[in-house]
């Protein structure tokens, strides 16, 4: 299924990126590290899912990739070019090729403008299209590509006249109109009804298969990632704890956090039994990180070493890597699904 091999060139690369926020408006010196030495690469034509709960740092990581946040250290490479310290002016060209789709299609579109104007705006911003007629042609093309057909009909509407799924398509069209190389989709379907989700996800899937578009999908929903992503990267407290081909990660998660995450997602088949084994407690705050492994207080498999040293992300082979001291020692099959007869 993987359309891209491991040797496909990366279009976006994060190299040991650290991003932090000031702890408070007054205290300028103390900062909270929200993304801690994260390396991640997005290949051309790939759909990479970044999984994490709120407070995992996944949104900050995306903002760093977009250079809306400047990392404290590490490098951000776009198409091989280091953009870590590029000025806003230099970033204009990059911004055009790296687009975002936001979570909330009800909020993301300006309410007062017609779809045509909304999709045209990026063209005006970047001075694309010599004439209005040419711009409108591009707008219509983008709308057709997102499945809003006939385009002239939808172009004339206001966002409030569209369904949630259609609005999200408009949001995607505003990105596509610039013909980007990277699309960062921040929880693109979590605000949508179930019946509209597959349409948007299939659209993202098709778009990256059509060309070289790399899609970074940020989501808390492992199921969505399992269905559509080539690769999955799981984040916990500012770190990537597991990364690998989506199919393998979901079939046999290697990190205790991924295992727990998978176990709490119920299957839709009621005869398939998956025991929910959530980790105890809650995600600690960034200001009170535990010593050693960040999962140590909550992990059922923790041993002495886990409290002492922080495990680094180590390759497992087959394109997988995991950050856990107990790799290979976890009992197999805790989330095994078995059928049982039912009355």
């Amino acid at each position, binding site marked *: 299924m993987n359309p891209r091999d491991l040797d496909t060139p990366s279009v976006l690369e994060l190299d040991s990126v650290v991003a932090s926020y000031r702890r408070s408006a007054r205290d300028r010196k103390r900062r909270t590290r929200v993304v801690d030495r994260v390396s991640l690469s997005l290949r051309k034509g790939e759909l990479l899912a970044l999984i994490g709960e709120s407070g995992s740092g996944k949104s900050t990581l995306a903002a760093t990739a977009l250079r809306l946040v400047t990392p404290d250290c590490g490098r951000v490479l776009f198409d091989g070019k280091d953009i870590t310290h590029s000025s806003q002016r230099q970033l204009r060209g990059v911004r055009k090729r790296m687009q975002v789709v936001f979570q909330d299609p009800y*909020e*993301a579109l*300006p309410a*007062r403008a017609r779809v045509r104007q909304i999709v045209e*705006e990026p063209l005006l*911003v970047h001075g694309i299209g010599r004439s209005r007629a040419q711009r409108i042609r591009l707008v219509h093309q983008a709308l057709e590509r997102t499945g809003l057909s006939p385009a002239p009909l939808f172009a004339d509407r206001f966002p409030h006249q569209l369904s949630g799924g259609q609005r999200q398509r408009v*949001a995607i069209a*505003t990105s596509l109109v610039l013909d980007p190389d990277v699309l960062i989709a921040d929880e693109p379907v979590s605000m949508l009804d179930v019946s509209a989700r597959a349409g948007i996800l299939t659209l993202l899937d098709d778009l990256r298969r059509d060309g070289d578009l790399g899609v970074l999908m940020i989501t808390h929903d492992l199921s969505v990632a399992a269905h559509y992503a080539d690769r999955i990267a799981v984040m916990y407290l500012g770190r990537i704890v597991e990364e690998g081909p989506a199919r393998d990660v979901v079939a046999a998660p290697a990190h205790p956090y991924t295992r727990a995450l998978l176990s709490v997602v119920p299957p839709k088949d009621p005869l398939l039994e998956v025991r929910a084994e959530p980790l105890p407690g809650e995600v600690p705050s960034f200001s009170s990180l535990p010593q050693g492994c960040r999962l140590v207080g909550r992990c059922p498999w923790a041993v002495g070493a886990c409290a002492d040293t922080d495990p680094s992300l180590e390759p497992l082979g087959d394109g997988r890597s995991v950050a856990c001291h107990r790799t290979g020692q976890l009992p197999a099959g805790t989330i095994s699904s078995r059928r049982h007869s039912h009355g």
Partner: protein
Amino acid sequence: MPPTSSLNAATAARRWLTWLRQNPAALIGGALLTAFAVLALFGPLLTPFGIDQRVGPVYGAPSPAHPLGLDDSGVDMLSLLIAGTRISMLVGLAASMVSVLVGGFVGVTAGYIGGWVDTALMRITDYFIVIPALPLMIVVATVWAPSVVHMVLIIALLLWTSTARLIRAQVLALKERVSVRRARAIGAGHARIVLRHIVPDIVGLLVATTVLAVSVAVFFEAALSFLGLGDPATVSWGRLIQIAFERTAISSGAWWAIIPPGLCIALVVLGSSLLGTAIQHAANPKAGIAHVSSRTFRIRPVPEASRD
């Protein structure tokens, strides 16, 4: 809801009319302000007599020819009142517009840029807020030569602060909206974000503030003129009251020299408050939703038509 800018003119006009019909307060306020505006615009055509023209005795009582009587120089009061409308409304409107422009600019700048710019601008705003209004106006008015332009500037100087605070708060909220973040991600520059994505959403609030400021400005104009700090060469409502006071209108029993200009001031203040508040509610509908109701839902039999 008030009309939005992107609809075509006919639809917009129709929505304005429905909105007015549903808001009697706005309708009354709007009618009052419109009436005075018309009076101010076409005043010279409507004045029955010249304002320097002596047409009868000192403090002549109201009569069919002079419904509001005559002033201390035997000039027709109605003519003076209409002439005064022009200056009072001009000063009121100009001062409120200047104050909203300044306040809006300061508010948008502080709210959008944030950081030390915000801190500095808000500190300045605070200074203006704590200075007592009337004494400051009196001081400035005494230092400056009295003129209509100075009057406008003095009043605007005091009015811009509340607008600045209000707009800043609004911009702070708007700045965090997803649609603004989207615009930034597209690569839109600051000018575009402010002009296309923020200002359109505060226009309603700006209009409401302007209309509300008119009432304060008209009142301040009257106060300054009454204190003798207005332009002596012009006629305004405040100045009419001041002249009547100085020239023993009260002891002469000439109520017609004082009450009509006072009533005009009151009506403009009322009109702009009514209309301004209504626009404010429409621009920010959430403020109006909170209400406590002890009523509960109704029980009813199933009508046959809806059975299926």
